[in-house]
């Protein structure tokens, strides 16, 4: 795309960095919501381009990281069944459940397939009519409508051996939860651009107002990130608790209406557990009862196994800006990307993993 390169242009990036330095007068904790943004900040070392006054807090926006151990265990138990093909995104493969990960179960003989798109899982279901195909449907508002689309398509194509093991999260409830902690250090928020492409801006306006926090909707290129931070700092310095769309080429006010309709058709709001944050009210989605044949938990009558709490990880604290990853006593020692103790070390989007991978 002809604008790709532009948004990585080092000169522009440097100028934005200077601009932020100029406009930033006070100390601010700014949280980027999205793991993809965490990743990009680390990869491009963007924090080094910011004034010391600004500290970036790495948010909860990685579905791989926040999917709770109990659901991963369910996925593992499904993958171990003779008649099940478990289909997953690549990043889910190395995430540890209470004992194993999908790579291990695959090595033990489980039929586990990686796909690029949930739609590919439908093809697998059609090609394997004698097997039960379960898609491990993780995601936030960006991905959830695509999972809904697989249900819709599955119905249209009369596929009867397909279901979803869902682990679906919503961004705003997590922000509310983090911000309402009295120790929370967050001042401003970079909303996740791709989530907003679907959701639109409306609900962030309410959030900014009620939490008294400025929100900049932000993209993922180095320019986009700094532009979002610049906008956020301007709002902070001016005490404007509103939403600024700093990613207007991809985010419209109303968002993707069709996608949201589909999402609402198949999913309803529910309380879900976030790995690292605990259970938050109405913070996730589950398949509506009407479509329960597509819900792997019901279809296979899965039960959450009792998960031992022998090891602890402080990623929840990190998300609230109370700690930095490398102040965790396990960081880089017992907890590494090869043998992650906590979810935040697992996905390359995870805050601890990004910190470790791109460490100076």
């Amino acid at each position, binding site marked *: 795309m002809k604008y790709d390169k532009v948004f990585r242009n080092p000169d522009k990036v440097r*100028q934005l960095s*200077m601009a932020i330095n100029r406009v930033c007068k006070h100390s601010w904790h700014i949280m980027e919501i999205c793991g993809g943004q965490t990743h990009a900040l680390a990869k491009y070392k963007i924090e080094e381009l910011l004034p010391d006054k600004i500290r970036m807090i790495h948010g909860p926006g990685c579905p791989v990281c926040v999917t709770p151990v109990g659901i991963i265990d369910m996925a593992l138990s499904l993958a171990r069944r003779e008649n099940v093909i478990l289909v997953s995104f690549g990043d889910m493969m190395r995430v540890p459940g209470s004992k194993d990960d999908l790579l291990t179960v695959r090595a033990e003989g489980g039929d586990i397939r990686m796909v690029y798109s949930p739609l590919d899982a439908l093809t697998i279901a059609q090609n394997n009519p004698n097997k039960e195909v379960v898609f491990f449907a993780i995601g936030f508002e960006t*991905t959830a409508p695509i999972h809904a689309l697989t249900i819709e*398509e599955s119905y249209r194509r009369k596929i009867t051996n397909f279901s979803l093991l869902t682990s679906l999260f919503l961004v705003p409830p997590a922000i509310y939860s983090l911000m309402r902690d009295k120790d929370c250090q967050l001042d401003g928020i970079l909303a*996740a651009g791709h*989530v907003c492409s679907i959701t639109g801006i409306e609900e962030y306006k309410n959030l900014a107002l009620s939490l008294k926090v400025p929100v900049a909707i932000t993209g993922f290129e180095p320019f986009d990130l700094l532009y979002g931070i610049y906008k956020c700092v301007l709002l902070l310095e001016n005490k404007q608790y509103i939403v600024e769309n700093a990613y207007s080429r991809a985010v*419209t006010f109303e968002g993707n209406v069709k996608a949201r309709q589909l999402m609402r058709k198949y999913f309803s709001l529910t309380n879900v557990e976030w790995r690292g944050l605990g259970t938050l009210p109405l913070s996730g989605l589950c398949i509506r009862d009407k479509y329960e044949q597509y819900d792997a938990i019901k279809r296979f009558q899965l039960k959450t196994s009792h998960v031992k709490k022998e090891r602890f990880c402080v990623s929840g604290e990190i998300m609230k800006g109370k700690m930095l990853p490398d102040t965790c006593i396990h960081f880089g020692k017992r907890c590494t990307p090869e043998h992650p103790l906590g979810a935040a070390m697992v996905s390359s989007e995870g805050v601890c993993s990004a910190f470790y991978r791109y460490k100076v």
Partner: protein
Amino acid sequence: MCLAIPGRIIKKDTSTDGLTMAKVDFGGVIKDICIQWVDASPGDYVLAHAGVAITKVDENEALLTLQDFEKIGEYLDNMGKNEI
């Protein structure tokens, strides 16, 4: 989360009665993408996530962002002059 990258629609696929699919060019790499949520034609850019176009990329808005950036530059230049 939500790795999404921009690609240009090369050709809509009219062969299926189901999903609206298109061949999308991501800088020389071509992939079939579902585009039924976006109102886009060949030549348009879309942001694709997990095989589905979640939004059209608005080139006009991109230009506006860059124009805004230029203004920041000018503003800073002026500020700089003032400060020195």
